[in-house]
């Protein structure tokens, strides 16, 4: 079995900065592996461990620096990494990004493609749907449990009121919920071995994707303007001395919210 896991490099830390010139996220600082994707990598590794003979390949579309995020997934135990990096891809929205990613996944021909539930920088939570549509593959999102047997997968899909149990034939695409597992810590040997694992970088040309179909040209959305949310000036901090609950209720009543 071959499992592909799509991962993204996101800016490290909690405070994101937007670049007023390009109207894009400022990605110049340190990057990190999107933590939702760590759940997908973990799930792939668990499936591999129970299947015995599976290959886990991590795939990313992003700037050259995204190789770091891929290396973190390799350190956790993934076997191989594929990065699609091309200056023309910058500024792609999810429609354009899904085109590149789908092309890369087509090339890999994995039995199972895993995604994290969302990227912690853009919070779209929809790229996997676009990719599934392009590849014409069944899709399960918000998977809180996943198993694979006899050419099909079985997933528990978390819903507001309980779980849907879904079965789908492979090849298929699954976006896992962050409740599905607790990602492992990469071991020291994993970290030290990561750089020796196969890591391939491809351009759009390698994938046969036309430059005009990606970047701003290939995107359906356009950012006109952005502004920061107003600061929460009237926020109040309540230290719990046993009466916090009462104070919160009082506050909500004051605002006529209860």
């Amino acid at each position, binding site marked *: 079995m071959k499992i592909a896991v799509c991962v993204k490099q996101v800016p490290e830390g909690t405070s994101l900065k937007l670049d007023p010139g390009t109207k894009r996220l400022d990605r110049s600082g340190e990057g990190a592996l999107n933590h939702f994707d760590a759940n997908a990598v973990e799930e792939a590794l668990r499936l591999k461990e129970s299947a015995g003979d599976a290959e886990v390949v991590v795939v990313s579309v992003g700037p050259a620096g995204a190789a*770091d995020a891929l*290396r*973190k997934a390799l*350190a956790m135990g993934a076997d191989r990494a594929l990065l699609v990096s091309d200056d023309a891809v910058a500024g792609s929205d999810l429609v354009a990004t899904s085109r590149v990613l789908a092309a890369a996944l087509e090339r890999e021909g994995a039995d199972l493609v895993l995604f994290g539930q969302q990227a912690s920088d853009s919070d779209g939570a929809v790229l996997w749907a676009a990719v599934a549509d392009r590849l014409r593959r069944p899709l399960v999102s918000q998977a809180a449990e996943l198993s694979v047997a006899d050419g099909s997968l079985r997933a528990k899909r978390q819903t507001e009121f309980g779980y849907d149990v879904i079965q789908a034939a492979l090849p298929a695409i699954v976006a896992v919920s962050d409740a599905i597992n607790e990602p492992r*810590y*990469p*071991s*020291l*040997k*994993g*970290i*030290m071995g*990561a*750089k020796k694992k196969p890591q391939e970088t491809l351009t759009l040309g390698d994938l046969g994707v036309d430059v005009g179909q990606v970047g701003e040209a290939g995107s359906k959305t356009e950012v006109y303007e952005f502004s920061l949310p107003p600061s929460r000036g009237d926020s109040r901090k309540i230290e719990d001395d046993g009466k916090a609950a009462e104070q919160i209720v009082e506050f909500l009543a004051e605002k006529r919210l209860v």
Partner: protein
Amino acid sequence: MATTAKPTELDPRDFLAIDALLDDEEKAIRDTVRRFVRERVVPNVGEWFERGEVPRELTQELAGLGLFGMHLEGYGLPGASSVAYGLTCMELEAGDSGVRSLVSVQGSLAMFAIWRWGSEEQKQRWLPAMHEGEAIGCFGLTEPDAGSDPGSMRTTARRDGADWILNGTKMWITNGSIADLAVVWARTEDGKINGFIVEKGMPGFSAPEMKHKLSLRASVTSELVLKDVRVPEENRFPEISSLRGPLSCLNEARYGIVWGAEGAARACFESALEYAKERIVFGKPIAGYQLTQQKLAEMALEINRGTLVALHLGRKKDDGTLLPEQVSMGKMGNVRGAIEVCRTARTILGGNGITLEYPVIRHMNNLESVLTYEGTHEVHTLVVGEALTGENAFR
């Protein structure tokens, strides 16, 4: 020389941008240990300290990360660089000196002793198991009446046929009561110092825990009591029969302390900085007062300076050019500096500074042990003094 490189933004947690001196692998290892400490140690260590316990699972988790004997090579060990090992010590000690001590003793004292001085059979038998955390080791050198002067030890090993009979008492032994094997240094009849692997369960050997410590409470400290313990010759280290044996191990562990101390100091500094920005006294945050700023500036200075020293020694160790006297200077300066940082942080936290709700008094108390073990501050001062003057002032 002028350059056109754009200066990066100032990071209060890494004022001199020392991070830029580390390679990707070093950072990856550091980040993993840091995350582990943040998630698994920091939320619980106050309670461990209060109860005077270390949970057994912690040992397994540390082994799972692959940290035991991480800087040693062969026998399935990772063979990480000295700098990576130092960074690991720093992150572990930012959690607690006791946790770092557990890893130091296992890797730098017990495993290193076997790795450096043991027989091939001893290495095969113990090193992989110790790396996996299946066997925990301790290192018995200090005795009730022999600390700074280990040459005056009284523990003896007497030859009896193919075996040795060990008698004596070791004291202050980290990991003693949880250990599956103890590296014990003893004097043989010819007056020489030999190392033995004493195994848990050997008749006449016990390791009662020492209680009532007010420092390094999240660490097991024990006595080793040896009453006519019969140890086979194959458990003796064949490669060494002098004080150089134990001293070489201590030099390894001390190197980790040079880094570790900066971790404890950094944890206290960060706690104090955050507190100073939030604590309002006389109508404004105490961070806005000159006296507090002086404290914070001095703390940051000390930590940055100490971390640079640690990194420099680490690079020298990786080059193979590090001298024991240089490690002595590092331990001397960094532990003293760190203890000062922790005490200053304590004052910034006011009354809150004396509770286990905040990390500072725990670190501050822990560093009292760190100041004393692996060669006291005074002993390292004398080592540096002798190296400078050529005069031995020990006796």
